[in-house]
Protein backbone atom coordinates (compact mmCIF):
# COMPACT_ATOMS: atom_id res chain seq x y z
CA UNK A 1 0.00 0.00 0.00
CA UNK A 2 1.23 3.43 -0.76
CA UNK A 3 2.65 5.70 1.81
CA UNK A 4 3.09 8.53 -0.61
CA UNK A 5 1.26 11.55 0.66
CA UNK A 6 -0.98 12.16 -2.32
CA UNK A 7 -1.50 15.78 -1.50
CA UNK A 8 2.16 16.62 -1.65
CA UNK A 9 3.18 14.49 -4.62
CA UNK A 10 0.75 16.05 -7.03
CA UNK A 11 1.29 19.71 -7.27
CA UNK A 12 -1.49 22.02 -8.20
CA UNK A 13 -1.87 23.04 -11.81
CA UNK A 14 -1.63 26.66 -12.60
CA UNK A 15 -5.15 27.76 -13.39
CA UNK A 16 -6.10 30.53 -15.68
CA UNK A 17 -4.06 29.84 -18.83
CA UNK A 18 -5.88 29.49 -22.16
CA UNK A 19 -6.92 25.87 -22.66
CA UNK A 20 -5.97 25.26 -26.32
CA UNK A 21 -2.28 26.03 -26.03
CA UNK A 22 -2.16 24.20 -22.70
CA UNK A 23 -3.53 21.09 -24.32
CA UNK A 24 -1.03 21.21 -27.18
CA UNK A 25 1.80 21.96 -24.81
CA UNK A 26 0.76 19.10 -22.53
CA UNK A 27 0.78 16.70 -25.46
CA UNK A 28 4.20 17.95 -26.51
CA UNK A 29 5.65 17.21 -23.10
CA UNK A 30 3.62 14.03 -22.60
CA UNK A 31 5.21 12.17 -25.50
CA UNK A 32 8.66 13.25 -24.29
CA UNK A 33 8.18 12.24 -20.68
CA UNK A 34 9.91 8.95 -19.90
CA UNK A 35 8.08 8.28 -16.66
CA UNK A 36 4.68 8.77 -18.20
CA UNK A 37 5.52 6.59 -21.20
CA UNK A 38 6.97 3.73 -19.15
CA UNK A 39 4.14 3.81 -16.63
CA UNK A 40 1.41 4.04 -19.24
CA UNK A 41 2.97 1.27 -21.29
CA UNK A 42 3.08 -1.16 -18.36
CA UNK A 43 -0.48 -0.35 -17.34
CA UNK A 44 -1.53 -0.69 -20.98
CA UNK A 45 0.06 -4.12 -21.33
CA UNK A 46 -1.67 -5.41 -18.21
CA UNK A 47 -4.93 -3.85 -19.28
CA UNK A 48 -4.63 -5.70 -22.57
CA UNK A 49 -3.90 -8.93 -20.72
CA UNK A 50 -6.97 -8.37 -18.59
CA UNK A 51 -9.28 -7.49 -21.48
CA UNK A 52 -8.31 -9.85 -24.26
CA UNK A 53 -6.28 -12.38 -22.29
CA UNK A 54 -9.30 -14.45 -21.24
CA UNK A 55 -10.36 -14.76 -24.91
CA UNK A 56 -6.96 -15.87 -26.14
CA UNK A 57 -5.98 -18.09 -23.28
CA UNK A 58 -9.07 -20.24 -23.30
CA UNK A 59 -8.83 -22.05 -19.97
CA UNK A 60 -11.24 -21.91 -17.10
CA UNK A 61 -9.50 -20.47 -14.03
CA UNK A 62 -11.41 -22.70 -11.64
CA UNK A 63 -11.27 -25.99 -13.59
CA UNK A 64 -8.96 -28.76 -12.44
CA UNK A 65 -7.14 -29.13 -15.71
CA UNK A 66 -3.99 -31.05 -15.04
CA UNK A 67 -1.65 -32.70 -12.61
CA UNK A 68 -1.25 -30.79 -9.34
CA UNK A 69 1.92 -28.83 -8.56
CA UNK A 70 3.40 -28.83 -12.06
CA UNK A 71 6.22 -26.32 -12.53
CA UNK A 72 5.95 -23.89 -15.47
CA UNK A 73 6.10 -25.74 -18.78
CA UNK A 74 5.07 -25.29 -22.40
CA UNK A 75 1.60 -26.65 -21.69
CA UNK A 76 1.05 -24.62 -18.51
CA UNK A 77 3.25 -21.52 -18.82
CA UNK A 78 2.78 -20.58 -15.15
CA UNK A 79 2.43 -24.13 -13.88
CA UNK A 80 -0.42 -25.51 -11.80
CA UNK A 81 -1.30 -25.23 -8.12
CA UNK A 82 -1.95 -27.95 -5.55
CA UNK A 83 -5.42 -28.56 -6.98
CA UNK A 84 -4.20 -28.81 -10.57
CA UNK A 85 -5.69 -25.47 -11.57
CA UNK A 86 -3.96 -23.53 -14.34
CA UNK A 87 -2.19 -20.56 -12.76
CA UNK A 88 -1.87 -18.55 -15.98
CA UNK A 89 -5.64 -18.75 -16.47
CA UNK A 90 -6.18 -17.57 -12.89
CA UNK A 91 -3.65 -14.79 -13.41
CA UNK A 92 -5.33 -13.53 -16.59
CA UNK A 93 -8.75 -13.43 -14.96
CA UNK A 94 -7.21 -11.99 -11.80
CA UNK A 95 -5.70 -9.08 -13.72
CA UNK A 96 -9.13 -8.42 -15.20
CA UNK A 97 -10.84 -8.25 -11.81
CA UNK A 98 -7.97 -6.14 -10.48
CA UNK A 99 -8.73 -3.50 -13.10
CA UNK A 100 -12.45 -3.80 -12.40
CA UNK A 101 -11.94 -3.11 -8.70
CA UNK A 102 -9.57 -0.24 -9.43
CA UNK A 103 -11.85 1.36 -11.99
CA UNK A 104 -15.10 0.99 -10.06
CA UNK A 105 -13.71 1.61 -6.58
CA UNK A 106 -11.36 4.40 -7.63
CA UNK A 107 -14.01 5.93 -9.86
CA UNK A 108 -16.66 5.97 -7.16
CA UNK A 109 -14.21 7.37 -4.61
CA UNK A 110 -13.21 10.08 -7.09
CA UNK A 111 -16.85 11.03 -7.69
CA UNK A 112 -17.64 11.24 -3.98
CA UNK A 113 -14.40 13.09 -3.32
CA UNK A 114 -15.16 15.60 -6.06
CA UNK A 115 -18.73 16.12 -4.90
CA UNK A 116 -17.74 16.71 -1.28
CA UNK A 117 -14.63 18.70 -2.20
CA UNK A 118 -16.34 21.00 -4.68
CA UNK A 119 -19.35 21.75 -2.55
CA UNK A 120 -17.33 22.27 0.64
CA UNK A 121 -14.71 24.39 -1.09
CA UNK A 122 -17.11 26.48 -3.14
CA UNK A 123 -19.88 26.99 -0.62
CA UNK A 124 -17.71 27.54 2.45
CA UNK A 125 -19.33 28.52 5.73
CA UNK A 126 -21.52 26.07 7.59
CA UNK A 127 -21.74 23.60 4.68
CA UNK A 128 -17.97 23.48 4.60
CA UNK A 129 -17.76 22.98 8.36
CA UNK A 130 -20.16 20.06 8.32
CA UNK A 131 -18.67 18.37 5.25
CA UNK A 132 -15.18 18.90 6.59
CA UNK A 133 -16.06 17.27 9.88
CA UNK A 134 -17.65 14.37 8.05
CA UNK A 135 -14.53 14.01 5.90
CA UNK A 136 -12.26 14.06 8.94
CA UNK A 137 -14.29 11.39 10.70
CA UNK A 138 -14.19 9.03 7.71
CA UNK A 139 -10.51 9.86 7.25
CA UNK A 140 -9.54 8.78 10.75
CA UNK A 141 -11.41 5.47 10.77
CA UNK A 142 -9.08 2.86 9.25
CA UNK A 143 -10.63 1.83 5.92
CA UNK A 144 -9.69 -1.81 6.12
CA UNK A 145 -11.18 -2.22 9.59
CA UNK A 146 -14.57 -0.91 8.43
CA UNK A 147 -14.52 -3.04 5.31
CA UNK A 148 -13.60 -5.98 7.47
CA UNK A 149 -16.73 -5.92 9.58
CA UNK A 150 -19.03 -4.96 6.71
CA UNK A 151 -17.68 -7.76 4.55
CA UNK A 152 -17.74 -10.24 7.39
CA UNK A 153 -21.42 -9.57 8.09
CA UNK A 154 -22.76 -9.06 4.62
CA UNK A 155 -20.55 -11.69 3.04
CA UNK A 156 -19.48 -9.76 -0.06
CA UNK A 157 -19.44 -12.19 -2.93
CA UNK A 158 -18.90 -10.13 -6.07
CA UNK A 159 -16.15 -7.89 -7.35
CA UNK A 160 -18.61 -5.06 -8.00
CA UNK A 161 -19.91 -5.09 -4.43
CA UNK A 162 -16.38 -5.09 -3.08
CA UNK A 163 -15.49 -2.14 -5.31
CA UNK A 164 -18.61 -0.27 -4.21
CA UNK A 165 -17.66 -0.58 -0.55
CA UNK A 166 -14.07 0.42 -1.22
CA UNK A 167 -15.27 3.46 -3.13
CA UNK A 168 -17.56 4.46 -0.28
CA UNK A 169 -14.73 4.43 2.26
CA UNK A 170 -11.59 5.64 0.50
CA UNK A 171 -12.54 9.12 -0.75
CA UNK A 172 -11.68 11.43 2.20
CA UNK A 173 -8.14 12.54 1.30
CA UNK A 174 -9.29 13.28 -2.24
CA UNK A 175 -12.16 15.38 -0.93
CA UNK A 176 -9.76 17.36 1.21
CA UNK A 177 -7.30 17.97 -1.60
CA UNK A 178 -10.05 19.01 -4.02
CA UNK A 179 -11.62 21.25 -1.41
CA UNK A 180 -8.32 23.10 -0.95
CA UNK A 181 -7.98 23.54 -4.72
CA UNK A 182 -11.55 24.77 -5.09
CA UNK A 183 -10.97 27.16 -2.26
CA UNK A 184 -8.11 28.83 -4.11
CA UNK A 185 -10.09 29.04 -7.36
CA UNK A 186 -13.25 30.38 -5.79
CA UNK A 187 -12.02 33.95 -5.48
CA UNK A 188 -10.78 34.26 -9.08
CA UNK A 189 -12.18 36.93 -11.34
CA UNK A 190 -13.70 34.55 -13.89
CA UNK A 191 -15.64 32.77 -11.14
CA UNK A 192 -16.88 36.10 -9.79
CA UNK A 193 -17.90 37.08 -13.30
CA UNK A 194 -19.89 33.89 -13.74
CA UNK A 195 -21.57 34.44 -10.39
CA UNK A 196 -22.40 38.04 -11.26
CA UNK A 197 -24.01 36.98 -14.52
CA UNK A 198 -26.34 34.74 -12.58
CA UNK A 199 -24.95 31.31 -13.42
CA UNK A 200 -26.13 28.66 -10.99
CA UNK A 201 -23.73 27.09 -8.49
CA UNK A 202 -23.73 23.63 -10.06
CA UNK A 203 -22.90 25.11 -13.43
CA UNK A 204 -20.12 27.28 -12.07
CA UNK A 205 -18.51 24.27 -10.48
CA UNK A 206 -18.93 22.17 -13.60
CA UNK A 207 -17.99 24.80 -16.18
CA UNK A 208 -15.61 27.17 -14.41
CA UNK A 209 -13.93 25.38 -11.57
CA UNK A 210 -13.64 21.72 -12.60
CA UNK A 211 -12.05 22.36 -16.04
CA UNK A 212 -9.39 24.52 -14.42
CA UNK A 213 -8.22 21.67 -12.25
CA UNK A 214 -8.95 18.78 -14.62
CA UNK A 215 -5.38 17.53 -14.64
CA UNK A 216 -5.38 17.52 -10.86
CA UNK A 217 -8.67 15.61 -10.78
CA UNK A 218 -7.31 13.05 -13.20
CA UNK A 219 -4.22 12.49 -11.09
CA UNK A 220 -6.37 12.12 -7.99
CA UNK A 221 -8.35 9.44 -9.79
CA UNK A 222 -5.17 7.55 -10.69
CA UNK A 223 -4.02 7.51 -7.07
CA UNK A 224 -7.46 6.35 -5.91
CA UNK A 225 -7.37 3.66 -8.61
CA UNK A 226 -4.07 2.28 -7.29
CA UNK A 227 -5.23 2.55 -3.69
CA UNK A 228 -8.42 0.59 -4.40
CA UNK A 229 -6.40 -2.22 -5.96
CA UNK A 230 -4.20 -2.47 -2.89
CA UNK A 231 -7.11 -2.41 -0.44
CA UNK A 232 -8.98 -5.02 -2.46
CA UNK A 233 -5.96 -7.30 -2.55
CA UNK A 234 -5.58 -7.03 1.24
CA UNK A 235 -9.26 -7.89 1.73
CA UNK A 236 -8.96 -10.84 -0.64
CA UNK A 237 -5.90 -12.00 1.19
CA UNK A 238 -7.62 -11.95 4.58
CA UNK A 239 -10.33 -14.13 3.08
CA UNK A 240 -13.03 -11.52 2.52
CA UNK A 241 -12.72 -11.38 -1.23
CA UNK A 242 -15.30 -12.26 -3.85
CA UNK A 243 -16.06 -15.96 -3.64
CA UNK A 244 -17.50 -16.34 -7.10
CA UNK A 245 -14.45 -15.15 -8.95
CA UNK A 246 -10.69 -15.03 -9.22
CA UNK A 247 -8.46 -12.18 -8.18
CA UNK A 248 -4.77 -11.69 -7.66
CA UNK A 249 -5.28 -11.21 -3.92
CA UNK A 250 -7.32 -14.39 -3.75
CA UNK A 251 -4.51 -16.28 -5.47
CA UNK A 252 -2.10 -15.07 -2.78
CA UNK A 253 -4.63 -16.09 -0.15
CA UNK A 254 -4.88 -19.61 -1.53
CA UNK A 255 -1.14 -19.94 -1.98
CA UNK A 256 -0.58 -18.91 1.62
CA UNK A 257 -3.39 -21.06 2.96
CA UNK A 258 -2.30 -24.23 1.14
CA UNK A 259 1.35 -23.76 2.13
CA UNK A 260 2.76 -23.05 -1.30
CA UNK A 261 5.77 -21.61 0.51
CA UNK A 262 6.65 -24.82 2.30
CA UNK A 263 6.14 -26.83 -0.89
CA UNK A 264 8.31 -24.39 -2.84
CA UNK A 265 5.61 -23.62 -5.44
CA UNK A 266 7.06 -20.20 -6.22
CA UNK A 267 5.15 -20.04 -9.51
CA UNK A 268 1.96 -19.87 -7.48
CA UNK A 269 2.66 -16.82 -5.34
CA UNK A 270 5.18 -14.84 -7.44
CA UNK A 271 3.01 -13.93 -10.48
CA UNK A 272 0.04 -12.41 -8.60
CA UNK A 273 2.38 -10.26 -6.50
CA UNK A 274 4.27 -9.09 -9.57
CA UNK A 275 0.95 -8.29 -11.22
CA UNK A 276 -0.30 -6.09 -8.38
CA UNK A 277 3.06 -4.40 -7.83
CA UNK A 278 3.58 -3.71 -11.52
CA UNK A 279 0.10 -2.28 -12.09
CA UNK A 280 0.08 -0.08 -9.00
CA UNK A 281 3.73 0.97 -9.36
CA UNK A 282 3.25 1.83 -13.02
CA UNK A 283 0.19 3.90 -12.12
CA UNK A 284 2.20 5.88 -9.57
CA UNK A 285 5.11 6.43 -11.94
CA UNK A 286 2.76 7.53 -14.73
CA UNK A 287 1.18 9.89 -12.23
CA UNK A 288 4.52 11.52 -11.49
CA UNK A 289 5.06 11.83 -15.23
CA UNK A 290 1.67 13.49 -15.64
CA UNK A 291 2.53 15.87 -12.84
CA UNK A 292 5.67 16.91 -14.69
CA UNK A 293 3.70 17.34 -17.90
CA UNK A 294 1.08 19.59 -16.36
CA UNK A 295 3.32 21.48 -13.97
CA UNK A 296 6.05 23.49 -15.72
CA UNK A 297 7.92 23.98 -12.45
CA UNK A 298 8.79 20.29 -12.27
CA UNK A 299 9.90 19.86 -15.87
CA UNK A 300 13.54 20.86 -16.02
CA UNK A 301 15.00 18.65 -13.35
Amino acid sequence: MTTTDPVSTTTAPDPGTPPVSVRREALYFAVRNGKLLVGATIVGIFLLVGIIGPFFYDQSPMAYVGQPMLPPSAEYPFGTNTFGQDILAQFVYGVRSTFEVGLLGGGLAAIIGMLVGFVAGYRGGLVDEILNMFTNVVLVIPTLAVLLIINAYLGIRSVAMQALLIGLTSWPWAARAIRAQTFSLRGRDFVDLARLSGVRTGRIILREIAPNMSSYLFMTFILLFGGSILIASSLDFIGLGPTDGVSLGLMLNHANQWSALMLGLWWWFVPPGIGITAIVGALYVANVGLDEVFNPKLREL
Partner: protein
Amino acid sequence: MRQYFGRKLFIYGLTFFVAVTVNWLIPRFMPGDPVASMVARASISQPEAVAAMQAYYTDLFGLDQSLISQYFNFWAALVTGDFGISIWAYPKPVADVILGAVPYTLGLMIPAILLSWLVGNWAGALAARRKLLDNTVLPVGYILTATPYMWIAILLCWGFGVVLGVLPVAGGYSFALQPSWSWEFIGSLAQHWVLPFASLFLVALGGWAIGMRNMIIYELEADYSNYLAALGAPHRLIRRYAFRNAVLPQITGLALQLGVLVAGALVTEIVFSYPGIGSLILKAIQNKDFFLIQGTFLFIVLGVLIANFIIDVVYVVVDPRTRAGMAGAST
Protein backbone atom coordinates in the same frame (compact mmCIF):
# COMPACT_ATOMS: atom_id res chain seq x y z
CA MET B 1 -3.66 25.90 21.40
CA ARG B 2 -6.59 24.98 23.58
CA GLN B 3 -8.83 25.48 20.59
CA TYR B 4 -6.53 23.29 18.49
CA PHE B 5 -6.73 20.41 20.93
CA GLY B 6 -10.39 20.98 21.60
CA ARG B 7 -11.14 20.63 17.90
CA LYS B 8 -9.03 17.54 17.56
CA LEU B 9 -10.55 15.85 20.58
CA PHE B 10 -14.03 16.68 19.35
CA ILE B 11 -13.30 15.03 15.99
CA TYR B 12 -11.84 11.97 17.66
CA GLY B 13 -14.76 11.70 20.05
CA LEU B 14 -17.16 11.99 17.14
CA THR B 15 -15.20 9.37 15.21
CA PHE B 16 -15.37 6.92 18.09
CA PHE B 17 -19.08 7.57 18.43
CA VAL B 18 -19.58 6.90 14.70
CA ALA B 19 -17.47 3.75 14.88
CA VAL B 20 -19.47 2.36 17.78
CA THR B 21 -22.72 3.23 16.04
CA VAL B 22 -21.59 1.51 12.84
CA ASN B 23 -20.60 -1.48 14.93
CA TRP B 24 -24.07 -1.53 16.45
CA LEU B 25 -25.89 -0.93 13.18
CA ILE B 26 -24.28 -3.51 10.95
CA PRO B 27 -25.67 -6.65 12.62
CA ARG B 28 -29.11 -5.02 12.50
CA PHE B 29 -28.77 -4.16 8.84
CA MET B 30 -28.25 -7.78 7.98
CA PRO B 31 -31.22 -9.21 6.13
CA GLY B 32 -33.10 -11.96 7.95
CA ASP B 33 -32.91 -13.03 11.56
CA PRO B 34 -29.43 -12.16 12.80
CA VAL B 35 -29.47 -14.48 15.81
CA ALA B 36 -30.52 -17.59 13.94
CA SER B 37 -28.24 -17.02 10.99
CA MET B 38 -25.26 -16.23 13.16
CA VAL B 39 -25.77 -19.29 15.32
CA ALA B 40 -26.20 -21.36 12.18
CA ARG B 41 -23.13 -19.88 10.51
CA ALA B 42 -20.98 -20.41 13.57
CA SER B 43 -21.41 -24.16 13.11
CA ILE B 44 -20.04 -25.07 16.50
CA SER B 45 -20.31 -28.53 17.95
CA GLN B 46 -20.44 -27.86 21.69
CA PRO B 47 -24.11 -27.60 22.65
CA GLU B 48 -23.38 -25.38 25.65
CA ALA B 49 -21.56 -22.98 23.32
CA VAL B 50 -24.59 -22.82 21.03
CA ALA B 51 -26.92 -22.21 23.94
CA ALA B 52 -24.67 -19.54 25.40
CA MET B 53 -24.33 -17.90 22.04
CA GLN B 54 -28.06 -17.87 21.41
CA ALA B 55 -28.75 -16.50 24.86
CA TYR B 56 -26.01 -13.95 24.51
CA TYR B 57 -27.08 -12.72 21.11
CA THR B 58 -30.72 -12.43 22.13
CA ASP B 59 -29.67 -10.72 25.32
CA LEU B 60 -27.26 -8.36 23.60
CA PHE B 61 -29.49 -7.48 20.71
CA GLY B 62 -32.46 -7.41 23.08
CA LEU B 63 -34.66 -7.68 20.06
CA ASP B 64 -37.84 -7.39 22.11
CA GLN B 65 -36.76 -3.97 23.38
CA SER B 66 -37.03 -0.68 21.59
CA LEU B 67 -34.16 0.30 19.28
CA ILE B 68 -33.13 3.20 21.48
CA SER B 69 -32.77 1.13 24.61
CA GLN B 70 -30.92 -1.50 22.57
CA TYR B 71 -28.50 1.19 21.53
CA PHE B 72 -27.97 2.44 25.07
CA ASN B 73 -27.48 -1.09 26.35
CA PHE B 74 -24.78 -1.54 23.75
CA TRP B 75 -22.95 1.54 25.01
CA ALA B 76 -23.39 0.50 28.62
CA ALA B 77 -21.79 -2.86 27.90
CA LEU B 78 -18.93 -1.17 26.07
CA VAL B 79 -18.18 1.21 28.92
CA THR B 80 -17.83 -1.69 31.34
CA GLY B 81 -15.41 -3.35 28.92
CA ASP B 82 -17.89 -6.04 27.92
CA PHE B 83 -17.26 -6.98 24.29
CA GLY B 84 -19.02 -10.32 24.49
CA ILE B 85 -17.74 -13.87 24.55
CA SER B 86 -15.45 -15.18 21.84
CA ILE B 87 -16.79 -18.16 19.94
CA TRP B 88 -13.44 -19.21 18.59
CA ALA B 89 -11.81 -19.15 22.05
CA TYR B 90 -14.99 -20.06 23.92
CA PRO B 91 -15.55 -19.23 26.78
CA LYS B 92 -12.96 -16.47 26.97
CA PRO B 93 -14.27 -12.89 26.83
CA VAL B 94 -13.41 -11.05 23.62
CA ALA B 95 -11.60 -8.28 25.52
CA ASP B 96 -9.18 -10.80 27.07
CA VAL B 97 -8.49 -12.51 23.77
CA ILE B 98 -7.72 -9.18 22.10
CA LEU B 99 -5.60 -7.86 24.96
CA GLY B 100 -3.48 -11.00 24.73
CA ALA B 101 -2.75 -10.27 21.07
CA VAL B 102 -2.22 -6.50 21.31
CA PRO B 103 1.38 -6.60 22.62
CA TYR B 104 2.53 -8.62 19.62
CA THR B 105 0.94 -6.26 17.13
CA LEU B 106 2.28 -3.16 18.88
CA GLY B 107 5.72 -4.71 19.25
CA LEU B 108 5.74 -5.24 15.53
CA MET B 109 4.14 -1.98 14.42
CA ILE B 110 5.71 0.68 16.59
CA PRO B 111 9.35 -0.07 15.73
CA ALA B 112 8.48 -0.65 12.07
CA ILE B 113 6.59 2.63 11.74
CA LEU B 114 9.10 4.77 13.62
CA LEU B 115 12.19 3.30 11.97
CA SER B 116 10.75 3.36 8.47
CA TRP B 117 9.70 6.96 8.99
CA LEU B 118 13.15 8.00 10.20
CA VAL B 119 15.14 6.06 7.62
CA GLY B 120 12.75 6.91 4.80
CA ASN B 121 12.86 10.63 5.54
CA TRP B 122 16.62 10.51 5.80
CA ALA B 123 17.01 8.68 2.51
CA GLY B 124 14.52 10.95 0.75
CA ALA B 125 16.18 14.10 2.02
CA LEU B 126 19.54 12.81 0.92
CA ALA B 127 18.32 11.88 -2.53
CA ALA B 128 16.51 15.12 -3.37
CA ARG B 129 18.29 17.10 -6.10
CA ARG B 130 21.16 14.65 -6.27
CA LYS B 131 20.99 13.02 -9.65
CA LEU B 132 22.76 9.74 -8.94
CA LEU B 133 21.12 8.96 -5.62
CA ASP B 134 17.75 10.15 -6.84
CA ASN B 135 17.87 7.75 -9.75
CA THR B 136 18.15 4.81 -7.36
CA VAL B 137 16.01 5.98 -4.45
CA LEU B 138 13.05 7.02 -6.59
CA PRO B 139 12.47 3.78 -8.56
CA VAL B 140 13.15 1.60 -5.51
CA GLY B 141 10.78 3.77 -3.50
CA TYR B 142 8.02 3.45 -6.07
CA ILE B 143 8.38 -0.32 -6.33
CA LEU B 144 8.34 -0.71 -2.54
CA THR B 145 5.34 1.52 -2.02
CA ALA B 146 3.36 -0.29 -4.73
CA THR B 147 4.11 -3.71 -3.25
CA PRO B 148 1.27 -5.29 -1.31
CA TYR B 149 2.40 -5.92 2.28
CA MET B 150 1.49 -9.59 2.16
CA TRP B 151 3.46 -10.22 -0.98
CA ILE B 152 6.71 -8.84 0.42
CA ALA B 153 6.01 -10.86 3.55
CA ILE B 154 5.49 -14.01 1.48
CA LEU B 155 8.70 -13.38 -0.48
CA LEU B 156 10.76 -12.78 2.67
CA CYS B 157 9.20 -15.77 4.35
CA TRP B 158 9.99 -17.95 1.36
CA GLY B 159 13.48 -16.57 0.77
CA PHE B 160 14.85 -16.45 4.31
CA GLY B 161 12.65 -19.04 5.92
CA VAL B 162 12.25 -21.79 3.35
CA VAL B 163 15.05 -21.48 0.79
CA LEU B 164 17.84 -20.27 3.06
CA GLY B 165 16.27 -21.68 6.19
CA VAL B 166 17.94 -19.15 8.47
CA LEU B 167 14.88 -17.66 10.16
CA PRO B 168 11.64 -19.15 11.48
CA VAL B 169 8.60 -18.73 9.26
CA ALA B 170 5.64 -19.03 11.61
CA GLY B 171 4.50 -18.04 15.08
CA GLY B 172 5.57 -15.42 17.59
CA TYR B 173 7.99 -17.76 19.38
CA SER B 174 9.20 -21.33 19.09
CA PHE B 175 6.39 -23.83 19.58
CA ALA B 176 8.66 -25.82 21.87
CA LEU B 177 8.78 -22.98 24.40
CA GLN B 178 6.35 -21.60 26.93
CA PRO B 179 6.13 -17.82 27.38
CA SER B 180 8.49 -16.86 30.21
CA TRP B 181 11.13 -14.28 31.02
CA SER B 182 14.07 -16.52 30.14
CA TRP B 183 16.80 -15.52 27.69
CA GLU B 184 15.94 -18.48 25.56
CA PHE B 185 12.38 -17.29 25.13
CA ILE B 186 13.34 -13.69 24.45
CA GLY B 187 15.84 -14.88 21.85
CA SER B 188 13.17 -16.95 20.16
CA LEU B 189 10.80 -13.99 20.30
CA ALA B 190 13.37 -11.78 18.60
CA GLN B 191 14.09 -14.39 15.94
CA HIS B 192 10.43 -14.66 15.02
CA TRP B 193 10.08 -10.89 15.03
CA VAL B 194 12.74 -10.12 12.41
CA LEU B 195 10.94 -11.10 9.20
CA PRO B 196 7.50 -9.58 9.91
CA PHE B 197 9.24 -6.43 11.05
CA ALA B 198 11.37 -6.33 7.91
CA SER B 199 8.38 -6.63 5.58
CA LEU B 200 6.45 -3.85 7.32
CA PHE B 201 9.55 -1.69 7.43
CA LEU B 202 10.41 -2.12 3.75
CA VAL B 203 7.00 -1.29 2.28
CA ALA B 204 6.53 1.77 4.48
CA LEU B 205 10.08 2.96 3.77
CA GLY B 206 9.43 3.61 0.08
CA GLY B 207 6.53 5.97 0.66
CA TRP B 208 8.35 8.09 3.21
CA ALA B 209 11.43 8.40 1.02
CA ILE B 210 9.38 9.57 -1.97
CA GLY B 211 7.32 11.98 0.11
CA MET B 212 10.39 13.52 1.70
CA ARG B 213 12.23 13.84 -1.60
CA ASN B 214 9.30 15.72 -3.13
CA MET B 215 8.93 17.98 -0.12
CA ILE B 216 12.63 18.86 -0.06
CA ILE B 217 12.58 19.77 -3.76
CA TYR B 218 9.57 21.97 -3.08
CA GLU B 219 11.27 23.64 -0.13
CA LEU B 220 14.51 24.17 -2.02
CA GLU B 221 12.50 26.14 -4.58
CA ALA B 222 10.94 28.35 -1.94
CA ASP B 223 11.93 31.99 -1.65
CA TYR B 224 13.74 31.59 1.65
CA SER B 225 16.02 28.95 0.12
CA ASN B 226 16.83 31.16 -2.84
CA TYR B 227 17.43 34.07 -0.51
CA LEU B 228 19.80 32.03 1.62
CA ALA B 229 21.60 30.84 -1.49
CA ALA B 230 21.88 34.43 -2.74
CA LEU B 231 23.40 35.41 0.59
CA GLY B 232 26.00 32.75 0.03
CA ALA B 233 24.91 30.36 2.72
CA PRO B 234 26.47 26.90 2.53
CA HIS B 235 24.40 24.15 0.92
CA ARG B 236 24.30 22.14 4.12
CA LEU B 237 22.63 24.97 5.95
CA ILE B 238 20.00 25.52 3.26
CA ARG B 239 19.21 21.83 3.18
CA ARG B 240 18.91 21.77 6.96
CA TYR B 241 16.31 24.53 6.84
CA ALA B 242 14.51 22.76 4.01
CA PHE B 243 14.48 19.54 6.01
CA ARG B 244 12.98 21.16 9.08
CA ASN B 245 10.16 22.59 7.00
CA ALA B 246 9.65 19.40 5.02
CA VAL B 247 9.32 17.26 8.13
CA LEU B 248 6.06 18.92 9.15
CA PRO B 249 3.90 17.52 6.32
CA GLN B 250 5.56 14.17 6.87
CA ILE B 251 4.26 14.16 10.46
CA THR B 252 0.78 14.90 9.16
CA GLY B 253 1.37 12.15 6.60
CA LEU B 254 2.12 9.72 9.41
CA ALA B 255 -1.31 10.37 10.86
CA LEU B 256 -2.92 9.94 7.44
CA GLN B 257 -1.10 6.68 6.80
CA LEU B 258 -1.95 5.00 10.11
CA GLY B 259 -4.91 3.15 8.65
CA VAL B 260 -2.81 1.78 5.80
CA LEU B 261 -0.04 0.78 8.19
CA VAL B 262 -2.49 -1.06 10.43
CA ALA B 263 -3.85 -2.90 7.41
CA GLY B 264 -0.31 -3.79 6.42
CA ALA B 265 0.47 -5.15 9.87
CA LEU B 266 -2.68 -7.28 9.83
CA VAL B 267 -1.89 -9.06 6.56
CA THR B 268 1.79 -9.42 7.46
CA GLU B 269 0.83 -11.16 10.69
CA ILE B 270 -1.38 -13.52 8.74
CA VAL B 271 1.50 -14.54 6.47
CA PHE B 272 3.77 -15.30 9.42
CA SER B 273 0.99 -16.64 11.69
CA TYR B 274 2.23 -14.02 14.12
CA PRO B 275 0.01 -14.15 17.22
CA GLY B 276 -1.25 -10.56 16.97
CA ILE B 277 -4.53 -8.90 16.03
CA GLY B 278 -4.19 -9.84 12.35
CA SER B 279 -4.08 -13.58 13.01
CA LEU B 280 -6.93 -13.10 15.45
CA ILE B 281 -9.04 -11.51 12.72
CA LEU B 282 -8.27 -14.39 10.37
CA LYS B 283 -9.38 -16.90 13.02
CA ALA B 284 -12.46 -14.84 13.76
CA ILE B 285 -13.43 -14.77 10.09
CA GLN B 286 -12.78 -18.46 9.59
CA ASN B 287 -14.83 -19.30 12.68
CA LYS B 288 -17.53 -16.70 12.01
CA ASP B 289 -16.74 -15.23 15.41
CA PHE B 290 -18.62 -11.94 14.98
CA PHE B 291 -18.04 -10.68 18.51
CA LEU B 292 -14.33 -11.04 18.01
CA ILE B 293 -14.48 -9.21 14.67
CA GLN B 294 -16.51 -6.38 16.16
CA GLY B 295 -14.20 -6.21 19.16
CA THR B 296 -11.06 -6.00 17.04
CA PHE B 297 -12.70 -3.29 14.94
CA LEU B 298 -13.28 -1.13 18.00
CA PHE B 299 -9.79 -1.82 19.32
CA ILE B 300 -8.21 -0.84 16.02
CA VAL B 301 -10.25 2.36 15.83
CA LEU B 302 -9.36 3.20 19.41
CA GLY B 303 -5.68 2.53 18.78
CA VAL B 304 -5.66 4.69 15.67
CA LEU B 305 -7.40 7.52 17.52
CA ILE B 306 -4.87 7.40 20.36
CA ALA B 307 -1.99 7.35 17.87
CA ASN B 308 -3.53 10.32 16.07
CA PHE B 309 -3.69 12.24 19.30
CA ILE B 310 -0.06 11.47 20.10
CA ILE B 311 0.90 12.74 16.65
CA ASP B 312 -1.09 15.92 17.29
CA VAL B 313 0.85 16.49 20.51
CA VAL B 314 4.14 15.91 18.71
CA TYR B 315 3.04 18.38 16.04
CA VAL B 316 2.46 21.07 18.63
CA VAL B 317 5.89 20.44 20.09
CA VAL B 318 7.56 20.57 16.68
CA ASP B 319 5.63 23.39 14.99
CA PRO B 320 5.66 26.65 16.95
CA ARG B 321 2.86 28.07 14.79
CA THR B 322 0.26 25.81 16.39
CA ARG B 323 1.34 27.05 19.81
CA ALA B 324 1.01 30.66 18.75
CA GLY B 325 -2.52 29.94 17.59
CA MET B 326 -1.75 30.43 13.94
CA ALA B 327 -2.72 28.09 11.17
CA GLY B 328 -0.22 25.30 11.09
CA ALA B 329 -1.63 21.83 11.31
CA SER B 330 -4.22 21.06 8.72
CA THR B 331 -5.29 17.59 9.84
